[in-house]
């Protein structure tokens, strides 16, 4: 019935919403569609912004394949994501599990865990530069208690990557909040049933809570995949990609190509490859999640 009424309304009325959303339609056109179109075109050109673009077809894409730095930055990004995503799932789930009580302490700790996510990236880069400082940093001071002579974190291969991973785990607040909400949705009587079956806290967590958390884990993995492909500010400020390009990430190389070497065409090609790589990663995570799921049930 309501459909009939809508059909009979004058055209003007049926299109009224378009007026309301018109700013956003223009925004999508100017700030997304046009830039992406330009990027597609420039990715087929050699363009320094000083001279007019020179059409070279697919050459940017083919030279990417033989660019060792490009391969290196993909590898670094994958290594980074490969550590950060599983570590943050385990850590955030454990913290969320502990936070799932209604005590005052729990509410205060929630704030403390979430606070780092609002700290600007530049400021947290400064803080962690200081914490990881090789001579007087807090982390090496703490290690020296145990008689360990800490490394010069941000200037040694391997340790620099580890430092960036540890730092990223500091801003784990969003997944924690999401897992906590998922845990609170688990009906309490299921836990009681688990207790009656003689399950300990860990088995209850795996068998009772996990199924309802699974979608949240999937969601967070995807968000973190996209975030990992964007990592820029922390390595740019803290390691400048070093030492020896060991923390040189994809977005950083793209930035350098566009704004340091003035290779806009090459950078545009990298942007499109980045979109493809992200999609591949997301599909991969989807496949893994589904596989894990079908073997469970």
């Amino acid at each position, binding site marked *: 019935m309501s459909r009939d009424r809508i059909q009979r309304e004058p055209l003007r009325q049926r*299109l*009224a919403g378009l007026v*309301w959303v018109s700013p956003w339609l223009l925004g999508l056109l100017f700030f997304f569609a046009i830039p992406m179109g*330009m990027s597609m075109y420039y990715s087929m050109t050699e363009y320094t912004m000083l001279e007019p673009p020179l059409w070279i077809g697919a050459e940017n894409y083919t030279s990417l394949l033989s660019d060792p730095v490009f391969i290196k930055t993909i590898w670094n990004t994958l290594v980074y994501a490969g550590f950060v995503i599983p570590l943050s799932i385990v850590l955030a789930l454990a913290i969320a599990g502990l936070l799932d009580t209604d005590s005052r302490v729990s509410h205060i700790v929630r704030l403390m865990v979430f606070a780092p996510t609002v700290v600007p990236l530049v*400021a947290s880069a400064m*803080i962690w530069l200081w*914490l990881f400082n090789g*001579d*007087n940093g807090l982390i090496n001071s703490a290690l020296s208690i145990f008689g360990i002579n800490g490394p010069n974190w941000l200037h040694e291969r391997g340790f620099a990557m580890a430092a960036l991973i540890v730092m990223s785990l500091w801003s784990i607040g969003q997944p924690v909040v999401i897992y906590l909400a998922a845990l609170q949705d688990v009906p309490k009587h299921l836990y009681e049933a688990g207790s009656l079956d003689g399950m300990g*806290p860990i088995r209850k967590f795996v068998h009772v809570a996990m199924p309802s958390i699974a979608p949240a884990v999937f969601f967070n993995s995807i968000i973190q995949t996209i975030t990992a492909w964007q990592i820029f500010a922390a390595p740019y400020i803290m390691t400048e990609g070093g030492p020896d390009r060991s923390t040189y990430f994809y977005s950083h190389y793209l930035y350098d190509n566009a704004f340091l070497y003035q290779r806009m065409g090459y950078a545009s090609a990298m942007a499109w490859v980045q979109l493809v790589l992200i999609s591949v990663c997301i599909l991969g995570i989807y496949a893994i999640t589904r596989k894990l799921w079908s073997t469970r049930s």
Partner: protein
Amino acid sequence: MTDGSKRWQISGRVSRLMLLSLIGMTFAMPLIWMAATSVKPESQAMQQGFSLLPDPPGLAVDGLKDNYAAVLNDTTVNFPLYLRNTIIVVFLGITGCVVSSVIVAYGLARVPMPGRKSLMVITVGTMLIPFPVLMAPLFMLYTKIGWIGTFAPLYAQFFFGNAFSIFLMTQFFRSMPKELEEAARVDGCGHWLTFRHIVLPLSKTAIAVVVLLHFTYMWNDFLAPLIFIVDRDKFTLMLGLQLYQSKAGQTPWNLLMAASLLTLLPVLVVFVIANKAFTRSSLSGAVKG
């Protein structure tokens, strides 16, 4: 219930509380250490150790005065100017974002139009596009229209809406009971009058959440200013902080921590006052996902 299991339960609760406190302290430690370093004299800041206060503790007062004054009066990095620039950009950005996003969201939620579903999908889709993908073409576009050298690249696009704000407001409008608006329509109000007089007054809290989140996003942003702002007198605070760290003649750690604390203080205060807005909004995406 037997005595034994009760004791087990209590000790379980105590150990959980202890573990929680430890986690809380671990997450707070970097911020506490930043604050502690920022009030120490340089010679003491550069020492190994765990003391939160300088020795003697009275020096903290001098440290507070001297270090923060040194940051604000630095000759190469003009923090007061960058604060002014940041406030201008953030204010314009929030204004544009709120006005347009609220109107667009109401249109998406309640006003009939063709292609509503696809527009919603596209809107969410744009949130997944990483900024590095867009930054090179946006730079070329802004160069062509003469925006490089002005603040416009940092705020202008928000006058056309912001995907996340539109998404949040659409969810909110959809959750409102339709009866109120229908009553207004029966009384002869058009969509605009209904929106203006019935819906908007009921949306203050939701709009406040959008303002806070967009404030934090713009205040913290580093990559867009890094790319689009070329003149040093147009720097934002985040660019200033990075310049302060990387400028010639290394900045002492106590001063760098004081500068960091100053730049993050506004967002931290906003977060402590309105933390629910932040934690709830990170759920809004997850529910959908």
